[in-house]
């Protein structure tokens, strides 16, 4: 198998391993206007066709796993969502499920707490998917769609902010339950907003399926067949676009996903349009799930927070969750103290890179941005394990205005921040 496909994480910096037949090499990143994230892509071309594409990662290693071993389980609840900038709730959710299982309190979590967690997760999926297909349209040269979709994304952001106080890191969960309730008046306020967003997303779907200028850029581009997908092991929407019908919420249900009505979205075509439609359909599914959850919240009562002791008994547990980008896996080992012995996180983007680079074989160089965007790159979570750079160790507490003023001064006069 390995002779047929090799993993694409094998590039040497001097270019001595370029494939035979390639006559041009394009280097993208780690700093590049196309990508907000640091990764180094090397595209080997013959004429206008891609022969092979490679990647180098490791520019944004933050050492979260090592940092977690030095903090208590309770402190880590606030560190773990920082593993990813945009899918923070799902990291926190998987983490609290690991802690609850290890502490043996997973039966004590009330239904109401689980429903609030699910609302947070689904709202995150909605805003992450809308953000992604907006950027995809931008990469395909269809900027109007970027503006339309991001305008509509504000609706769900407002709801998340109303419920949690934050826009992208709701941080609602704690081991044992949730921090905040969703009161009835806020839920009533959110319902018409959700219905408006459903209409807007249906319109987005119409644009992606009927508008010729964007459809031509996505249809039959970067096809990943099911057999290739089985070998390169993509997860999440990337896999579901290629006919692998696996969604953690169905295949290994957690929280209350088995008690709610929703459909698994799966397309068999394997091109970029299929992955896009998977995400748009999932957005619609998530929005109707949000509505269902709000309805169920009205009739469900229960304690929001169960007590979890700070010392977690010895043991190990692996939990997974369906992040917007795919399969998020955490593996925790406890040693009986209040700190973890070992904590491993793997975010979905790393598992999707091989499949995405496989898509590029034999495609036109002009389709490159769209294909590279297709797996929703997120390198903070790909290189999540890294070393935090503390300048002096000095600590200053300041409010947002002070911080902004100081930052502007430091920039203008080229002064150090501290």
């Amino acid at each position, binding site marked *: 198998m390995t002779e047929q496909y090799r993993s694409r994480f094998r590039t040497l910096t001097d270019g001595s391993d370029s494939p035979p037949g390639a006559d041009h090499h394009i280097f993208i990143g780690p700093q590049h206007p196309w990508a907000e994230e640091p990764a180094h892509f090397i595209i080997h071309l013959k004429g206008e066709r891609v022969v092979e594409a490679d990647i180098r*990662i*490791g520019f944004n290693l933050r050492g979260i*796993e090592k940092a977690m071993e030095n903090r208590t389980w309770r402190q880590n609840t606030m560190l773990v969502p920082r593993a990813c900038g945009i899918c923070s709730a799902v990291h926190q959710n998987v983490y609290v499920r690991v802690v609850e299982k290890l502490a043996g309190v997973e039966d004590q979590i009330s239904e109401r707490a689980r429903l609030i967690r699910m609302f947070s997760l689904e709202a995150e999926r909605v805003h992450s998917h809308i953000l992604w297909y907006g950027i995809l349209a931008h990469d395909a040269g269809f900027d109007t769609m970027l503006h339309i979709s991001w305008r509509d994304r504000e609706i769900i952001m407002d709801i998340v902010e109303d419920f949690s106080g934050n826009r992208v890191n709701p941080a609602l969960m704690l081991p044992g339950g949730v921090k905040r309730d969703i009161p009835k008046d806020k839920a009533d306020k959110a319902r018409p907003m959700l219905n408006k967003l459903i209409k807007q997303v249906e319109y987005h779907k119409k644009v992606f399926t009927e508008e010729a200028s964007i459809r031509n850029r996505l249809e039959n581009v970067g096809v990943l067949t099911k057999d290739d997908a*089985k070998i390169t092991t993509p997860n999440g929407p990337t896999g579901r676009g290629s006919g692998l019908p696996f969604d953690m919420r169905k295949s290994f249900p957690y929280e209350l996903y088995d008690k709610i009505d929703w459909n698994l979205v799966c397309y068999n075509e394997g091109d970029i349009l299929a992955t896009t439609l998977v995400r748009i359909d999932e957005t619609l599914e998530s929005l109707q799930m949000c509505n269902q959850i709000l309805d169920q919240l009205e009739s469900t009562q229960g304690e929001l927070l169960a007590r979890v002791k700070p010392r977690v008994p010895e043991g190990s547990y*692996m939990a*997974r969750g369906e992040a917007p980008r795919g399969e998020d896996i955490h593996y925790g080992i406890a040693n009986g103290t209040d700190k973890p012995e070992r904590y491993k996180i793997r975010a979905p983007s*790393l598992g999707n890179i091989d499949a995405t680079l496989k898509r590029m074989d034999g495609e036109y160089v002009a389709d490159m941005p769209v294909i590279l965007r297709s797996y929703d790159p997120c390198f903070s979570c790909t290189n999540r*394990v890294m*070393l935090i750079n503390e300048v002096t160790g000095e600590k200053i507490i300041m409010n947002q205005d002070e911080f902004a003023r100081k930052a502007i001064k430091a920039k203008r006069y080229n002064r150090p921040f501290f």
Partner: protein
Amino acid sequence: MSDALKELEEILNVTLPGNLVEEVVKVEEGHFNVFSNATNAFELMKILREDAGIYHLTTISGVEKDDEFNVCYHIQHRIEDEFREVPINFTVTKIDKNKPKTPSMIDFFVAADYYEREIYDFYGVYFENHPFLQRLILPERWPDDVKPMRKEYGWEQIKEITMKIAKEALEEAKE
């Protein structure tokens, strides 16, 4: 033969030879821990990959114990007709701490390539027959002999090394 092993064999529809398996533990419904030592792990994984047809490797985690290293392969048995997955944590135990060495599973999973290199970076576990065992995630200037996830390196020490290589890089950039 334990009940957990029998149940796992029924799900996978294969026989797992008793001399290759150290222990099978059922974590919860449809979720298993399988233990095997570094000598037998390759043979056992071959049965899981080729006879049972497990093709999805989610990730690999390295674990440091008091007197040995463990490497845990998180694989999923996928039943497509039922839209169901059976997660299996395949732990390779008894990897010697002085000369950490274990067989590479790259013959069975393409994705094992970069996950194994990540563990090589962080723990210094050597994967036999891996064709390209080189640095993946650590910075270029990181000293070769420092394996940051090992317990012997504390948080403060890692911070010091980071500061040192950052300073070196800055000075080089000034020149």
